[in-house]
């Protein structure tokens, strides 16, 4: 009994070690977003709270915590309260199978990729329940848009993952990363380049980020599914969205950019010079690259029209993945060097 309790305490400690820094990263990602987009638009961005605006996320969090939570009279009370929880939980649970370094993973399960895929597909219920439970037409329109968009892009994303599974021969993230060891050219971004692009585009669509942010389309439906939410309930949706962004970036790193592996692997002098750098630093650096890409894309592209989103998902991305899965299967079957030898 005591052993069980001790192992339980260990697991809870590990969860805290993952979740608390994650929430910190979410807070400062919001600030990074405002700063990056500001500089891209020749503005300064947040600079009032603390030195160069460094305290802004904390001030924002305090404001949201102390704001009143308003529950509309016509809303469906249970769903209205449940929706933010349904959005937040899968976004955090999915982190349990993400390895940050060799062996640094909460649950080293065999079906890790499937687990992540299942969790990201549950996240949609938070948005649908919020949209319907609010009993507001804007929120409802947004929920309908999100439902159709996410179901469509889940297919493309799933097929992109299938390509990675075929290449690595495993659904365990640690094994997938080990299968990419060698050098930068051994990482799967090169042999699976079309799948990498498809994964990233559908990742943008899955997290409802620009240019696929029709869920929030300010000019059309005010703010979409969370238009009726205030205070902490709104903050939960916000947290879930950013946690999902970080998750999608981390998955891109694990599956296409060699996870915690050093980019100098296989280069004679540089490899030994940078041997002391822990793997989690490389992991974080690569994930930051993708997070920056999120913000860059948001500052660059205009919002897609809805029918164009659907066309891109069904008629472009899915056929590309289907063809490339076939190519990857052939390459694995015939042990194409240097990746699948």
């Amino acid at each position, binding site marked *: 009994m005591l052993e069980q309790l001790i192992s339980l305490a260990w697991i809870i400690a590990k969860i805290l070690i993952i979740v608390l820094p994650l929430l910190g990263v979410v807070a400062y990602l919001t600030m990074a977003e405002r700063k990056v987009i500001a500089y891209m638009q020749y503005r300064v961005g947040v600079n009032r709270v603390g030195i160069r605006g460094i305290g802004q996320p904390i001030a924002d969090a305090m404001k949201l915590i102390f704001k009143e939570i308003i529950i509309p009279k016509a809303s469906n009370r249970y769903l209205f309260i449940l929706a933010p929880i349904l959005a937040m939980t899968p976004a955090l649970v999915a982190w349990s199978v993400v390895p940050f370094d060799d062996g640094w993973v909460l649950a080293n399960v065999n079906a890790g990729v*499937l687990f992540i895929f299942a969790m990201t597909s549950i996240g949609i219920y938070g948005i649908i329940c919020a949209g319907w439970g609010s009993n507001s037409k804007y929120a409802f329109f947004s929920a309908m848009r999100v439902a*159709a968009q996410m179901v469509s892009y889940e297919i493309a994303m799933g097929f992109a993952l299938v390509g990675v599974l075929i290449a690595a021969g495993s659904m365990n993230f640690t094994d997938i990363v080990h299968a990419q060891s060698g050098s930068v050219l051994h990482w799967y971004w090169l042999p699976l380049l079309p799948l990498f692009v498809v994964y990233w585009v559908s990742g943008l669509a899955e997290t409802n980020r620009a240019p696929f942010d029709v869920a929030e389309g300010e000019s059309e439906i005010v703010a979409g599914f969370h238009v009726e939410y205030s205070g902490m309930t709104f903050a939960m949706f916000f947290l879930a969205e950013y946690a999902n962004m970080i998750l999608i970036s981390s998955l891109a790193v694990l599956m296409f950019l060699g996870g915690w592996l050093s980019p100098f692997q296989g280069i004679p002098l540089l490899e030994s010079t940078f041997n002391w750098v822990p793997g989690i630093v490389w992991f974080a650096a690569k994930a930051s690259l993708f997070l920056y890409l999120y913000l860059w894309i948001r500052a660059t592209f205009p919002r897609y029209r809805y029918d164009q989103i659907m066309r891109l998902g069904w008629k472009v991305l899915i056929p590309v993945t289907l063809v490339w899965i076939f190519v990857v299967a052939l390459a694995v079957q015939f042990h194409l060097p240097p990746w699948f030898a």
Partner: protein
Amino acid sequence: MINLPVLVFYSFASLLVLSSAMVIISRNPVRGALFLVLAFFASSVLWMLLEAEFLALALIFVYVGAVMTLFLFVVMMLDLDLVPSREGFVRYLPFGILVMVLFVAVMIVVVTPEHFKLGSLGAVPAHPEGYSNVKEIGEILYTQYFYPFELASILLLTAIIAAITLTFRGRQHSRSQRIDKQLAANKADRMYLVDPKESQ
């Protein structure tokens, strides 16, 4: 001493029974659909207990993630007026009870414990370390059950084509854009410059 798997089994099994009952009982169709989601979730946990992690996760991302999302989509769009459907409840009650008794009787006769082979199965065998549920399923599916598997996929393809032909009403009423034409357009096709002095 509490046995953790047993505890998990009983809590999720009762959750499964309860939520399945709520699917039928609840008056609001959206609430019914959400309880169905909960039922899928609970049964996926039971499969997870049997170490069938592939089936458990596939149940979640296929049924919960895709099928039920579309289902909710449709149910939310329908503006169901529930009052007329409850009219005549007493009048149809005897007939309803008769049908129910018949169904239950048939189920009791047809679906007996022997059909599930509960007695002969015994406890779930413990799997050795490194056992992969996915590999086992793949091997069986693509060897022993290859033809049924392929037939099922053809059946589904036929259903997709049938659904599309049923809803496709031809091009004449819809004004869709031609992507290739849009991409082929250039400045000279769309715009010409006029010198205001010459036109006067």
